[in-house]
Structures are given as structure tokens and as C-alpha cells.
């Protein structure tokens, strides 16, 4: 779609007084000419008439002389006006030149600073912005657009996915029963007060609902699960050191490490309710203004403890001001980008993104590696006919062979998705590509039918099939396609599609038989997927295979504190889950977005996580 056209240029065009005057003058001359040509008289024989004509001519000559004098005066006036206008325009031009010179100087400074424009405001269109400002308030999980105002103890390297220090370094002590976190030097809250270990303790205890500081005694955040790894009292050793007794290292990293730190002095001073309206943290952005449903404006925290020389680790942002502008409707987000109201849009459907692919003024983001999609059979509950075919590995293998994942990727996806293997995305502890490729369940309906017959289901079977709508793009059409492919080999499904919360609520009951289409998340470690969907007793674990050796590996990785050894166990676990055909493995989603070509943002698969806006680099142009 063109940004410049006749109408836009027309409404932008300036019509000066001089132009109007000259146009009027031309019109006047033209009218006079027309009058002369159209009104002339050829009859001049009569003397009287000649004398009369002479008189008239004299009168006309006098009139003309008078008119000429008036016209000359008018021209003088006009010239004076024109001169004044010219002078004004000259001043304007000089001002413009001065502004241009200033801009060029700023650009030169930006280029000198490494090709990054550190003075830019970047605007992004986001689907929604409601909620409070307190990252620990119940239900405030939707406020992820504010998370960059808060620091976390640990982070991960965007490129390697390695867990790294953000606000603190850490070590394991007391025979691996506790973690010691050392806060980095020079950290401060946005009000200038230093961040101390008392703040970390307070953050953990407030979330656990055991921090007595307000009139009600404690704050019921309902967020215990986030710090479930903490199994005893947290001890402050000194101003920058804290000891946290934990059950395992992995849960400590993914729960305690990812907590948004809150300032004890501020929460205690103003109380929970006020903090939800006036919260601040120590993160790389400070909150400038927040208008619910409309806009969140943040600024670079100039005193942030990590400078901009980092690339893939959390650091002081390159963006000076960051505006998150609410545009709930995806097409309206695209329109806002086209109209120049925003610089960046994410979570856009493939069809909309593809329109920007061949344009020089925009860059299309295809950010692969998020959120593998699977279909989970329920092995705990038999189907309505009393059978439980999903317990047989041949049936599960048959289902995997029945699905043409590559065609789904090409026709329903962006074409850039990758097949899903194991328990997480490739970045998060699944098998390596080399490990996975030979194990690939190739599309082979004949083989699927043969495996079903071998398992005692030559005519297939009937099963309920539950899917979701609205959370990820195209999950409904993918589910419908999968249902058709399964039916082609004899597995007749009754598909029901629901919004995610309804789907999840039903599945969490674990007593609903059939197939359930769900997806892994993108937390820094696959532990959350393992705990919820693999471990026996997990809240969403309905595909359980006691004889497979999987639960032993789940326990082994949980108890392993050596990072390399644990990675090896995770690798083995992923391979076991895949070869055991635990689930029907589909693909890892691709996050799509579009940004202006004067921005650079390699989010490494993290565009869903608002905490990674620090990595947006405005380019000096």
C-alpha cells in the first residue's frame, strides 16, 4: 500500500499568497482578453459616431491612465508584500537549515556511538494494557508489558539460552540444599535507593504470603507456586548476600531466579493497593506514564547496572523512550504501522506479515523456536467404548506417521516453523537436530494403518479430540487438518474447539478421555513443561507411561546439580519421550512481526517475552 498518493500530496501542499495572486492575475488577464475578442464592433462609417468615439476614447484614455496609476500603486504594494514574504521565507529557510544541521550533528554523534541512535523513541503496538503495576498482585500475569521495569535475579543469554546472572550471581552450598545469591554492585531502585538483600527476601516472602508488613498481616498474592522451590526460611547474610534453601537447583533457577524484585521500603510505605498503582522496580526501563487501555510510556533507566555494551544479555536499553501503544485488533496494528504511528508490531498473522516482505522500508521478523505444539493422548482414562488404545506404543507411532507435519507447516504455517521434538523447543532442552533427524516420524499413512492393525485396531477407533482457538494462530485449522489426517488412517475423531482457559480447565481435570492439543511454553528451562506435562502427578500430565523409564529420568534431572550432566539427562529424556511417541509431535511456532528498517532486533525466539525489548537497537541513519 502506498504511503504517498495524490490526496496525501494535495493536502500537504502549501498554497502561498503569491501563488494565489499570480493565479488571480492570470485569470484577470485572460478575462480581459476574452472580453476584447468577444465584444469588438466593426462599424465606423458615421462621423458623429467617430467624434463620439473620439470623446469616448479620450475618456477611456483618462480612465486607463487612472487605472494604470492605481494598478502601479497595487503592484508597488504587492511587491512590498512579496518582499516581506520573501524575507519571512528566508528566515524560515535559515531556521530549517539550522534544525537540519542539528539533526545531522545528532546523527553523526549516533554513528560515532557505534551506529546506534541513542536518542530515539520507539513505539510498538501491543494488543492490550490493563492491569495494575504490581508484578506480584494476583491476576497481574497479564501485565507482562510492564515487566521491563523490574529486575530479576537471573536471566538467560538470548543467543545461547544459558542461565546467567541479571541482578545476582549464585552458587550452591550446604550439600546443594541452598542457593546463595550475591547482588551485583551499584544496583539501585528507580527512586535512587540501593537494592539490598532485604529487598530480595521481602520479594520472596511477600509472594509466599508470609511477609508481615501491612494492616492485614500478609499480602495474599496466591503466587506460592512461583517460589515452590523455597522450602525453608530465607536468610539475609549481609546487605548484598542472601541464602535461599531450596529443593532443587532447576526449580530455583526458573522460579526464584525469574521473580520480579520489588522495593521493600516502597511497598511498606504505601501499602499493597497503592503499590499496585505506583509501583517501580530496578529494571532497565523506568515508568514514565501509564494510561490503562491506551499507552505505557517508559524511559531508559540511565543508572542501570549493566551498560549498553552487552548484546544478548539484559542491559541498559538503546532506546531512550519506549511507547507501548494499545491496538487490540491485529489489522489495526498493521494500519498503525503503515500510518507511521508505530515502529514495530508483533504477533501478527502470516497473511498480514507477508505483505511487508518485499518492502525496503520494513523488516519482517520471523522468530522461530517458540512453543512446540503437541497432541497429548489421555492414557489415564479409557475411551467411551472402554478401550484405551493410547497405551499401545504402536497406536501412538501410527498417529505420528499419519500426520503430514511438513505440509501443515507449508500450508497452514509460515513455512518457517520447525518440527517439534522431545519436550521443549530446540533452544530449551529438546534434542539436537542431529539427534532428532534420524528419528523423524515420516508421513506414511500406509505404515500408520499397518501399525494400527498390528495393535489390534484394523478398523481404527473413535475418540474425542479437544483443541483450542485464539491463543496461537491457526490452531483451529491445524486441529481440523490433523483430525482429517487421523481419519484417513481410521482414527475417527470428534473435534471440539474452545478458548484456551476452558480447554485447560477441562484437561486439568485429567478425567476427560481422548486427544488434547496443547503447546509447550517458553520458560528459561524445560522444567516447567516437565513438571506440568511429563512428571507423574503433574497438573496437566495425562500421557503417562510407567514402563518407559521416563519418570526415572524426570527424577534424575531434578536431582542433578551439575549443569552439563543435567543437560545430558534432559537430552536423553527428550529422546525417550520422542521414541516412546509420548505425544503427537507437530511443530515449533514462529513468532511474526514487522518493524521499520531503521530498527534492529534479533530477539532470538523471544518476541513473546516483553522483557526483551532492551535488545531493540535504533539504527543511526
Amino acid at each position, binding site marked *: 500500500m502506498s504511503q504517498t498518493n495524490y490526496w496525501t500530496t494535495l493536502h500537504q501542499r502549501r498554497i502561498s499568497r503569491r501563488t494565489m495572486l499570480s493565479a488571480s492575475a492570470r485569470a484577470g488577464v485572460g478575462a480581459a482578453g476574452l472580453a476584447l475578442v468577444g465584444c469588438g464592433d466593426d462599424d465606423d462609417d458615421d462621423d458623429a459616431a467617430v467624434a463620439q468615439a473620439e470623446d469616448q476614447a479620450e475618456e477611456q484614455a483618462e480612465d486607463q491612465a487612472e487605472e494604470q496609476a492605481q494598478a502601479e500603486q497595487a503592484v508597488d504594494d504587492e511587491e512590498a508584500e512579496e518582499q516581506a514574504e520573501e524575507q519571512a521565507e528566508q528566515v524560515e529557510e535559515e531556521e530549517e537549515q539550522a534544525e537540519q544541521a542539528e539533526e545531522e550533528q545528532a546523527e553523526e554523534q549516533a554513528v560515532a556511538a557505534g551506529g546506534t541512535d541513542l536518542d530515539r523513541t520507539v513505539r510498538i503496538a501491543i494488543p492490550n494494557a490493563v492491569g495494575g503495576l504490581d508484578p506480584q*498482585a*494476583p491476576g497481574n500475569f497479564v501485565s507482562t508489558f510492564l515487566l521491563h521495569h523490574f529486575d530479576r535475579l537471573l536471566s538467560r543469554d538470548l543467543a545461547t539460552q544459558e542461565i546467567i546472572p541479571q541482578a545476582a550471581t549464585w552458587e550452591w552450598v550446604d550439600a546443594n540444599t541452598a542457593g546463595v545469591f550475591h547482588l551485583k554492585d551499584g544496583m539501585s531502585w528507580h527512586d535512587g535507593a540501593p537494592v539490598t538483600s532485604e529487598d530480595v527476601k521481602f520479594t520472596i516472602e511477600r509472594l509466599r504470603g508470609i511477609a508481615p508488613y501491612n494492616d492485614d498481616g500478609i499480602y495474599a498474592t*496466591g503466587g506460592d*507456586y512461583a517460589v515452590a522451590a523455597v522450602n525453608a526460611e530465607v536468610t539475609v547474610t549481609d546487605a548484598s548476600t542472601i541464602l535461599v534453601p531450596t529443593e532443587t537447583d532447576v526449580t530455583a533457577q526458573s522460579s526464584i531466579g525469574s521473580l520480579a524484585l520489588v522495593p521493600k521500603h516502597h511497598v511498606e510505605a504505601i501499602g499493597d493497593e497503592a503499590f499496585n498503582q505506583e509501583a517501580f522496580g530496578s529494571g532497565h526501563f523506568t515508568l514514565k506514564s501509564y494510561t490503562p487501555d491506551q499507552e505505557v510510556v517508559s524511559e531508559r533507566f540511565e543508572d542501570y547496572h549493566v551498560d549498553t555494551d552487552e548484546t544478548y544479555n539484559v542491559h541498559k536499553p538503546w532506546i531512550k523512550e519506549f511507547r507501548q501503544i494499545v491496538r487490540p485488533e491485529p489489522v489495526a496494528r498493521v494500519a498503525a504501522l503503515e*500510518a507511521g504511528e508505530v515502529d514495530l508490531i508483533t504477533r501478527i498473522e502470516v497473511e498480514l506479515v507477508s505483505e511487508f516482505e518485499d518492502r525496503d522500508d520494513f523488516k519482517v521478523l520471523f522468530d522461530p523456536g517458540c512453543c512446540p505444539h503437541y497432541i497429548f493422548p489421555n492414557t489415564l482414562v479409557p475411551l467411551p467404548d472402554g478401550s484405551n488404545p493410547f497405551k499401545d506404543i504402536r497406536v501412538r507411532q501410527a498417529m505420528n506417521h499419519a500426520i503430514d507435519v511438513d505440509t501443515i507447516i507449508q500450508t497452514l504455517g509460515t513455512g518457517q516453523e520447525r518440527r517439534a521434538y522431545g519436550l521443549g523447543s530446540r533452544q530449551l532442552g529438546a534434542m539436537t537436530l542431529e539427534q532428532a533427524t534420524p528419528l523423524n516420524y515420516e508421513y506414511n499413512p500406509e505404515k500408520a494403518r499397518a501399525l494400527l492393525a498390528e495393535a489390534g485396531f484394523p478398523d481404527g477407533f473413535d475418540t474425542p479430540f479437544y483443541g483450542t482457538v485464539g491463543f496461537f494462530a491457526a490452531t483451529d485449522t491445524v486441529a481440523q487438518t490433523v483430525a482429517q489426517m487421523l481419519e484417513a488412517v481410521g482414527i475417527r475423531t470428534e473435534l471440539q474447539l474452545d478458548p484456551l482457559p476452558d480447554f485447560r480447565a477441562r484437561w486439568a481435570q485429567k478425567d476427560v478421555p481422548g486427544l488434547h492439543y496443547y503447546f509447550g511454553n517458553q520458560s528459561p528451562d524445560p522444567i516447567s513443561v516437565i513438571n506440568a506435562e511429563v512428571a507423574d502427578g503433574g*497438573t496437566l500430565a495425562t500421557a503417562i507411561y510407567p514402563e518407559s523409564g521416563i519418570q526415572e529420568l524426570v527424577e534424575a534431572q531434578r536431582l542433578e546439580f551439575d549443569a552439563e550432566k543435567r543437560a545430558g539427562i534432559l537430552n536423553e529424556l527428550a529422546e525417550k519421550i520422542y521414541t516412546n511417541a509420548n505425544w503427537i509431535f507437530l511443530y515449533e511456532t514462529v513468532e511474526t512481526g514487522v518493524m521499520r528498517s531503521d530498527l534492529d532486533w534479533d530477539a532470538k525466539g523471544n518476541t513473546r517475552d516483553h522483557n526483551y525489548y532492551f535488545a531493540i537497537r535504533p539504527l543511526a541513519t
Partner: protein
Amino acid sequence: MAGNSLWQVLASRLLQGLLVVLVVVTIVFFVSRVARDPIQYLASDESTQEEIERLEEIFGLDDHVVVQYGRFLWETAQFDFGNSLVNGRPALNEVQSRLGKTLQLGVASLIFSLVLGLPLGVIAALRRGSPTDWFARLLAVIGQATPNFWLGLMMIFFFSVELGWLPTGGSGSLKHMILPTVTLGLLTSAAVMRLTRSGMIDAMGTDFVRTARAKGLREGTIISRHALRHALLPVATIMGIQVGRLIAGSVIIETVFSWPGVGRLTITAIQGGDFPVTQTAILLIAATIVLANIAVDLSYRLIDPRIRAGAG
């Protein structure tokens, strides 16, 4: 007595309205709990059963649904609508803070629809069969047949992206109001135009208009003081319904144009399982529609002297 009758009518309408609001909120209350488990919006994949139970206790969801309903009615009667599950603020405050924006948009759309629909309807009726009439009817058909969601997006692309005249969304200035107002008001203006046109055609053929002409009144006076007044009665009726439509339409339009009103809040609250806000928003919307209809009922008495006389 005419005065007593007015109060009786008002009291009767208010009672009926109260009943309607009660039925609406009851349906919303049970649907939001039976169809969905709010706790699933608050818990994570890793939440244990103990955590879920604790959340249920915090939000009072561990009681039987009938007990919850009784508590809800009792608290609602005291204007206590509970707190938002998303940000902990009182649900009524959340809705109230956006009600002004929705009313602003609704009133502007209503004015737009009247300003466009009434004159167009009158002109179309007076020049029946002319190109003006044909154009007005075409506009009415398009206005009523076009989904406002699609129309809104087209408006954004034409006026914001192509021409660059107006912002794509948001609020804050008069410019921000133009596109949502026109989009929302076009449907209503089509209805107003059609009813005005047919009402005027009827009126112009009535005895009282003939009498007025016979008395030698000017045509303008006949149209404005006699015929139009007669034609406005069905328009007033439809306006009551249109208020409901405008508010319902605002749910979509506020989403398309990022207008921070009650409609968008309702959508967000439904999506996020924030049932206290959902209930409060729908209660206020229902109350607004009921009050608008009562106002329309009363306006009959102003427009049509026969109703006043009958009542008296």
C-alpha cells in the same frame, strides 16, 4: 390527573427495568461461572491443587455457586461489585472510569445519525423518486447492510493509512473521535433516514397537512411543525432500540479503534476471566439501555400531544 399518571408510568417502567437488569446480571453471573472456571485464568500450568484452593479462597470461589450468587446480589444491592481479579481495583471504578468514553462516543454517534438521517429522510420523502431519494435509499441500504467491524477497518485504511488525515485509533482529541463516531453512527443514521422518510411520506398525505395547506400556511411551517412532528414518533421509538445497538456496537468499534471505553473493557474482562468487571460492565450496560428506553417512553408524551391528552 396527568401528573400522577406520569409518575405511575415512570414507577412502572423503573420496576420493569429493574427486573430486566436483574435477569441480565443473573444470566451473566451463572454463565461466567458455569461455562468457565475463573480460577483457570489465575493459575499457571504449574499451580498445585493447594495453590488453586488458596486462590479459590482468596476470591471467594470455594463456596457453592448459590451462596456466591446470594452474596453477589447482596453486595450488588449495596453497590459493592467486588474487585477486579486483574488489578485488584474496585470493579465499579474500573467500569466508571471508562463509562464517560463510551457515553461520549455513543452520544456523538447518536447526534451524527440524527444530523445525517433526519434531513436526508425529509428530503428523500419530499423529493420522492428523485435522484436524491434514490441516493438516500442506497445509502440506507449500504449503511444497514455493512458490518461496522469491516466498515471501521476500511475507514482506517482509507482515512488514516492512505490519506493520513486521521489517527488509526486511540483517544484524546476530536480527530480521534471522527472515525469511530461515523462508523458507529452510520447504521443508526440509515435506520433514522428510512423511518423519517416513510413517516414523512405518510404525514404529507394526511388530512391535517391538507388542512394546513388549505389554511395557507407556508410549506416550511407545514413540514417542520406538523408533518415532521408526526414522522418523529417512530424515530423516537427506534432511538431507544438504537441506544442498545450503539452500546452493543461499541464493544466491536472500541476494539477496532482502540477506544478506551466500557465495550473494550468488557471484551478484555471476558477474555481474561475477570468476572467481577464483566458483571459490573454488563449490569451498567443493561441499566443504560433500560434507562434509555424509559426516556424514549416518556419522550412520546412530549412529541405526540394525543398521548399526553390520553394520559390526562
